């Protein structure tokens, strides 16, 4: 996994609450068997005026001029500023894949849905929870200043605004460790192979029916 330590980038505002993963990446694009290439279809139904199809050349499609990502000032954005309950709905990891493929590295919101939040960490994306009041202020500051950039320092767990204001954020120590070091967490878990085997052996004794093979019969 790509490591994440520090990041500085332009902030783009997604000013609606309860953004669901169907909205982030609509179902027709989930038919891909790859992890990459979802960026052009990020927020497809909001971003384009027509109905998107898999494997289509999106450069020729009519853009929705009102959608924030289609405004030149947010063209280089790599930090997404969002509202409450971002990423709710389906567990599709295609949602963080699409955000990542588009070029986002950080998402800031007052709250995230659990599965989406977890999926971000598996893909080198950092979701940051800040108080709603602070998020409201950031929305106002982003609207005011073109090219508004923030800095994110994961080791210090801080977001720094252009005026030098600092906001600290919480992050789970294990997730932080994996992200900062770009660790493959399967590899980390397999270091505990012996613990897994001894759990299985004990459980096989106490609840053998859990180990009855389901078979092709």
């Amino acid at each position, binding site marked *: 996994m790509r490591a994440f330590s520090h990041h500085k980038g332009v902030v783009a505002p997604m000013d609606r*609450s309860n953004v669901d993963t169907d909205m982030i990446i609509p179902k027709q694009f989930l038919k891909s068997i790859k992890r990459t290439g979802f960026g052009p279809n990020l927020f497809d139904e909001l971003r384009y005026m027509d109905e998107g199809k898999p494997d289509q050349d999106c450069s020729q499609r009519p853009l929705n001029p009102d959608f924030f990502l289609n405004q030149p000032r947010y063209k280089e954005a790599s930090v997404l500023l969002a509202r*409450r309950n971002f990423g709710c709905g389906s567990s599709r990891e295609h949602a963080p894949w699409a955000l990542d493929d588009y070029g986002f590295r950080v998402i800031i919101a007052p709250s995230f849905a659990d599965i989406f939040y977890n999926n971000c960490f598996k893909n080198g994306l950092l979701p940051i929870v800040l108080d709603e009041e602070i998020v409201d202020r950031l929305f106002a500051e982003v609207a005011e200043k073109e090219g508004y950039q923030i800095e994110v320092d994961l080791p210090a767990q801080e977001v720094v605004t252009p005026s030098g204001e600092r906001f600290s954020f919480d992050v789970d120590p294990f997730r932080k460790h994996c992200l900062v070091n770009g660790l493959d967490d399967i590899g980390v878990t397999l270091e505990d192979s012996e613990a897994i085997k001894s759990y299985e052996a004990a459980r096989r004794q106490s*609840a053998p029916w859990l180990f009855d093979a389901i078979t092709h019969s």
Partner: protein
Amino acid sequence: MAGKTLYDKLWDDHLVKQRDDGSALIYIDRHLLHEVTSPQAFEGLRIAGRRPWRLDANLATPDHNVPTTDRDRGIDGIVDPVSRIQVETLDKNCDEFGILEFKIKDQRQGIVHVIGPEQGATLPGMTIVCGDSHTSTHGAFGTLAHGIGTSEVEHVLATQCLVQKKMKNMLVKVNGKLGPGVTGKDVVLAIIGKIGTAGGTGYAIEFGGEAIRDLSMEARMTICNMSIEAGARVGMVAVDDTTINYVKDRPYAPKGDQWEAAVAAWKNLHSDADAEFDKVVELDGADIMPQVTWGTSPEMVTGVDGQVPDPDKEADPIKREGIVRALQYMGLKPNMPISEIKLDRVFIGSCTNSRIEDLREAAAVVKGRKVSPSLKQAMVVPGSGLVKTQAEQEGLDKIFIEAGLEWRDPGCSMCLAMNADKLGQGEHCASTSNRNFEGRQGFGGRTHLVSPAMAAAAAIAGHFTDVRELVH
């Protein structure tokens, strides 16, 4: 010391290792797979040169992309080549790694959350995961079950474990009795309406109370299924005789002495009387009436006798903005009665409501009646090949067909429209599925979530109507 909740017990039973940083390694008993969220996980295993840790913990089936017609043609019946590749990829991966799969032509194929319980692959006390957020369905059996992303699908395949952090405990208690014509779907929609789509974020929800205890396993599954629509990855119901009677004699359920030992262990799968919950929400079952969603989030819901809300009456600016946007997308006016919403299509199916009881409830409403000529389509999609067979043995297919509904083959179908079944732009659909998000059932489609009985009543009327008045 306070007693343990059901969630605490399930957690403790599956704890492989508690780490110093607060994370824990949790053992997974059952892993369900489908074609949409697994290909990249198998590819990851291949690239890393890893093998599945425990093959016999896995069960796979294609469901999202499968067509609901022409099934005798198998994979060749999938018209969309991209969908076909995904289903073929699942077959290839399961064959290569040796994972049990109910393939497209197997009678046991169906929606992954229907077939697990049907086969007894879902057993009380298990941890169950699947790359699908509606895995919470299995919590109805007193299991710890939740959706995971594709990276975690790979993690479970490779290690039989997940790295987890313990959630908080929430009890949602539905007291008293439900009124006639009020179903599990209405209960869960009412709960979501009360606590909101983020109300359960960070919590494992246990559903309890007299009204829940009185429900069948299938109704409990409907409720647990939509825990995720209340923000909770996990929804659970304690094990009781209803659970045990449902599991008994299922193909993969334990037999003989093992059955006796399992039942003895399962009897402990409830929260202790002195267990403490971080949050308790109570509803009175008698207050719940048939529900209809009017907006683009499952929390945008009201009783069938209600009205579309007026954004001007909402004090919270973010919620107000949400209502305005939803009404615009849904093409509805503030204060309009729910019963005046005209429908274009009706969909009865999905992992929420495609089991035999759902089909019986819908059939009872349409029996001897005709689908409104104002509808373009009304379809019934059973949850599995076995549900379909049973419904046909009971003659439900004939009732549907005579009333003018289409009788289809099993799959996820129009719940998320990855196959050919979808809404056209601007069309209103009474749907027994779980999500009314923008575009969920088709580009520009407008979804209203309801119970199977309410969907059936809407099919007859052509608009929403209180099923209790139609039937009684």
